[in-house]
């Protein structure tokens, strides 16, 4: 009900991306051209694969700790192929490896904005939806209308979540504003004891995006002034660290009081704590990032049919539930909800009620450089 | 001359009493008693490992004595660090600072003593002139020949006007021809500056030709101290006799105070034979043995008959190895047209003057 009504800029971007795909082919160092052309074909006619067809072993390139190994074993047993999974720690490290070609991987799990980049670069292959009947298990707003892949032509949502703040209530008390002010406003930070104990993600789009949100702008804003304002805000905020790697641990060990980060990580961390109730994760009232990780088939996947079969396998209701029950991220798989643990399903931090204030990060093309420069300047 | 010559004094320049140095279980220097007079050129001589360097290093302060007393000009200096002693050293390998110019090398000690800049420059200039290296001030040590480096090392030490100059085999690295030249220069220089030199060498000829007095060491002990002539002509034992120059040792027994009976039965008259019945050896220098035709020995001298076994030509002389029944004797003859050359196999007789031998313990 919410995903489809996304903000204008995101939709625009998708168009841009589609327009750019031709350039992307030229840009690709000569020999990638063929595969690029494949990908640039209109959506809908992916490889000629039948349902449950396998054309070899599966090579999966995924985020670390993102799938229950038993699920992979199940796939191996069900289809008589072996699965090799390698893991990465960021979209940015994964993309060039795939983009360069000859990576050897079949399925990757890029995040939303990276999907659009990879589509325009020709890094991923159009899906043959016919070979993925379980695609329809997806909730409506995931099945179509996602800003980075409106038709669902290239990517199948895997898990989703939000970016927000984790807070140590032992310091702030229960009664603090659920606002970015905790981070960006000196007075508020002083009041609740968060000043100097804040970590923000070391990521230009996420962190400048948070600032933009606090300022009331879209996090995909391409206005120089708005970006400048956001930059100043970040530069002057009482921040201890920019950290994408250990923010959850640092919060748990008392190194920080407020941490900017991804929903799932916090839950795993809070669960471990002596008193899980000491901590709280929330998306600030001004709004935040919503992200979706997606399965996609690599443009030169050696085993495209196995890849489709694997995507179909994950989109199965039971398997989708198993995924969420293992990694604590929200599932886009509506059919799976029946089997998802109720405490997950009912946790508003995992399944937020109010999706309106959330925005997807979308690729801004050339403007990405402004984000990254601004972020470097903001960090000092 | 740029230094004040030390006034003659009764206080020895260096005075050691029971000076001892032990390294773990090795006794490198064993209770040395020695006075070196002010202005003297003193040579320490001995085989490798006998403790010469260790003695010098104790005087320099580079080694702390294990026991005993060490005075320089009357002041006990046993544990004074090297930089506080009025002593300088010319090291065997020169130890010139490779990263400094010649002038900086020479001026190093003065600068360390905070001598005013102008003085440093003047005295460095004088010292470099003294060792005849003017014009090379700005070179690095590796741009000099061995002999030149040696002179820099000398200037670097002398410029500080030390009370005592220590030289540890300063000429060992030079080739023979150059060494001979430097020996002469060094001796000249010492006379000019009047500084006490303590000189270590293992080259006996070098010690004999340069030193006022020589101390012969063996195994950490001082075996004999004396003028070159005393040491050469009256060695106290076989070791000293053999180490200083070459010598033949004729074993025998003391018959009475002036007669020795050699192993082959020959009776020999000597100045001081020692205790009757004692086993001794006669030390007989090769150049003091007279080589004559068989039987042509003047009356009144003991004589030994033998055959020429080998001839070694040395340039200024010839060494004959004369084979006797019971031993071989080396004889050195001058290489002069007037002296007939002998051939291998010639039958000869040997004799010597009574005062040509020294009696040493067997």
């Amino acid at each position: 009900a919410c995903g489809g009504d996304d903000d204008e800029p995101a939709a625009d971007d998708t168009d841009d991306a589609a327009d750019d795909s031709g350039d992307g082919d030229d840009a690709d160092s000569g020999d990638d051209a063929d595969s690029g052309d494949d990908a640039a074909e209109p959506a809908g006619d992916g490889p000629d694969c039948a349902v449950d067809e396998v054309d070899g072993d599966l090579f999966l390139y995924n985020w670390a700790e993102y799938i229950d190994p038993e699920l992979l074993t199940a796939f191996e047993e069900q289809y008589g192929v072996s699965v090799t999974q390698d893991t990465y720690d960021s979209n940015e490290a994964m993309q060039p490896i795939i983009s360069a070609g000859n990576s050897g991987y079949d399925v990757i799990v890029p995040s939303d904005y990276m999907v659009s980049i990879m589509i325009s670069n020709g890094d991923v292959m159009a899906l043959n939806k016919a070979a993925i009947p379980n695609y329809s298990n997806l909730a409506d707003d995931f099945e179509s209308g996602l800003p980075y892949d409106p038709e669902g032509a290239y990517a199948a949502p895997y898990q989703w979540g939000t970016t927000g703040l984790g807070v140590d209530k032992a310091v702030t008390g229960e009664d603090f504003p659920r606002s970015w002010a905790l981070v960006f406003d000196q007075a508020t930070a002083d009041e609740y004891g968060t000043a100097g104990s804040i970590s923000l993600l070391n990521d230009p789009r996420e962190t400048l995006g948070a600032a933009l949100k606090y300022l009331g702008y879209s996090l995909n804003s391409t206005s120089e002034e708005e970006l400048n304002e956001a930059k100043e805000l970040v530069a002057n905020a009482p921040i201890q660290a920019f950290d994408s790697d250990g923010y959850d641990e640092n919060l748990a060990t008392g190194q920080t009081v407020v941490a900017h980060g991804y929903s799932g990580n916090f839950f795993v961390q809070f669960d471990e704590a002596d008193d899980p109730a000491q901590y709280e994760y929330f998306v600030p009232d001004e709004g935040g990032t919503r992200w979706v990780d997606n399965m996609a088939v690599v443009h030169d996947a050696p085993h495209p049919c196995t890849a489709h079969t694997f995507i179909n396998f994950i989109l199965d209701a039971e398997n989708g539930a198993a995924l969420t029950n293992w990694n604590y991220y929200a599932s886009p798989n509506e059919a799976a909800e029946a089997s998802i643990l109720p405490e997950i399903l009912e946790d508003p931090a995992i399944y937020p009620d109010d999706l309106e204030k959330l925005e997807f990060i979308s690729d801004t093309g050339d403007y990405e450089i402004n984000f990254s420069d601004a972020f470097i300047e903001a960090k000092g | 001359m740029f230094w004040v010559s030390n006034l003659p004094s009764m206080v020895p320049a260096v005075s050691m009493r029971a000076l001892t140095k032990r390294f773990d279980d090795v006794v490198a220097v064993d209770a040395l008693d020695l006075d070196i007079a002010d202005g003297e050129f003193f040579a320490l001589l001995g085989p490798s490992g006998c403790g010469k360097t260790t003695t010098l290093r104790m005087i320099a302060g580079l080694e702390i004595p294990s026991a005993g007393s060490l005075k320089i000009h009357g002041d006990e200096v046993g544990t004074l660090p090297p930089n506080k002693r009025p002593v300088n050293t010319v090291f065997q390998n020169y130890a010139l600072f490779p990263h400094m110019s010649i002038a900086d090398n020479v001026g190093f000690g003065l600068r360390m003593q905070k001598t005013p800049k102008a003085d440093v420059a003047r005295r460095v200039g004088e010292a470099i002139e003294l060792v005849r290296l003017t014009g090379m001030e700005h070179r690095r040590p590796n741009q000099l020949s061995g002999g030149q480096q040696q002179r820099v090392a000398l200037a670097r030490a002398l410029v500080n006007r030390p009370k005592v100059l220590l030289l540890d085999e300063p000429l060992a690295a030079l080739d023979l021809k150059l060494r001979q030249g430097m020996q002469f220069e060094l001796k000249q220089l010492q006379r000019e500056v009047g500084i006490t030199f303590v000189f270590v060498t293992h080259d006996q000829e070098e010690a004999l030709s340069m030193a006022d007095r020589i101390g012969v060491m063996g195994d950490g002990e001082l075996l004999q101290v004396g003028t070159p002539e005393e040491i050469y002509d009256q060695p106290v034992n076989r070791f000293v006799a053999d180490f200083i120059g070459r010598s033949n040792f004729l074993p025998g027994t003391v018959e009475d105070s002036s007669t020795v009976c050699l192993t082959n039965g020959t009776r020999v008259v000597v100045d001081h034979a020692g205790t009757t019945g004692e086993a001794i050896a006669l030390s007989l220098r090769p150049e003091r043995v007279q080589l004559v035709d068989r039987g042509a020995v003047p009356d009144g001298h003991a004589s030994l008959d033998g055959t020429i076994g080998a001839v070694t030509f040395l340039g200024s002389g010839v060494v004959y190895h004369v084979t006797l029944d019971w031993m071989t004797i080396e004889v050195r003859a001058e290489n002069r047209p007037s002296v007939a050359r002998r051939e291998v196999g010639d039958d000869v007789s040997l004799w010597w003057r009574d005062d040509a031998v020294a009696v040493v313990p067997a």
Partner: protein
Amino acid sequence: MSSSSLDPLDIVDPDHEHHHVGEEVERRLRKADRRRGLLLALPAYLYMVLFFAVPLVIVLVYSFATRTSSGSVALSGWNLDSYRKLGEPIVRNVVFRSAWLAAITTFVCLVIGYPYAYYAATRRPLVRNLLLVAVMIPFWTNFLVRNYSWRLLLSTGGPISSATEAVGLGETDLLFTRTAVVLGLTYSFLPFMILPLYASIERIDWRLVEASRDLYSNGVQSFLKIVLPLSLPGVIAGSILVFVPSLGAYVTPEILGGGRETMLGSYIVTQFLTARNWPVGASVSFVLMAVMLSATIVYFRSGGKNL
């Protein structure tokens, strides 16, 4: 050692036929010797050309290309934009900051590494080897784990903080400070300082030190005037080996510095990955390498060969 790689040397040995002597033969033999040298170098040479120089040229070409709006590289419309970007204040700031941090790191490594190397070089052989191996051993653990360990050590309430609190110095909040970055970089590159320093100190002729003592230097003066200048090759080699990777470091500044100090290494990573601006990533790398290579070659060619 593969024997086939060296055997050909004997094949080019002169045969019995070449008995006439002369400049011609000498030249030919010298040429044969050069050929032998080339033959010996060839496997590594070819390897480095094929697997290093050629890839390097590819990136060099990229540095003159243009970033497309999707962040890939357009191999057309060659330009110098990416090099022009190096003149912008943002890059200058990063360069100055990283040069400053790298210099501090180098200095700290020198200050604690020198005495360590000196101490090691003046011990007996067994102690010497143990002290050198002791410097290497920590590096047999995973580098990320080492950095995390430091994070723990430095964190609020961590061992260091507790220790300083216990002795009444109050809590020390070192994590996510510039100090932590320098500490982490020092930790990462200390062996690269100690090893060449050790090599050059160990080579010093100690008689020179004695000579200086004899010439009225006290211990400190002997060190400053003799030991230090003579170990300069090691100091320079060590400094290059610490300074260069410090400039290029990015994991340590992020883990221990809280990502607040963008260093050149982070900047390059950002350009290649986050901004997907390969031309700029490449041009920064090339300028950095050119500067460092000139410095290194000038130093190594002028006689220092230490590691």
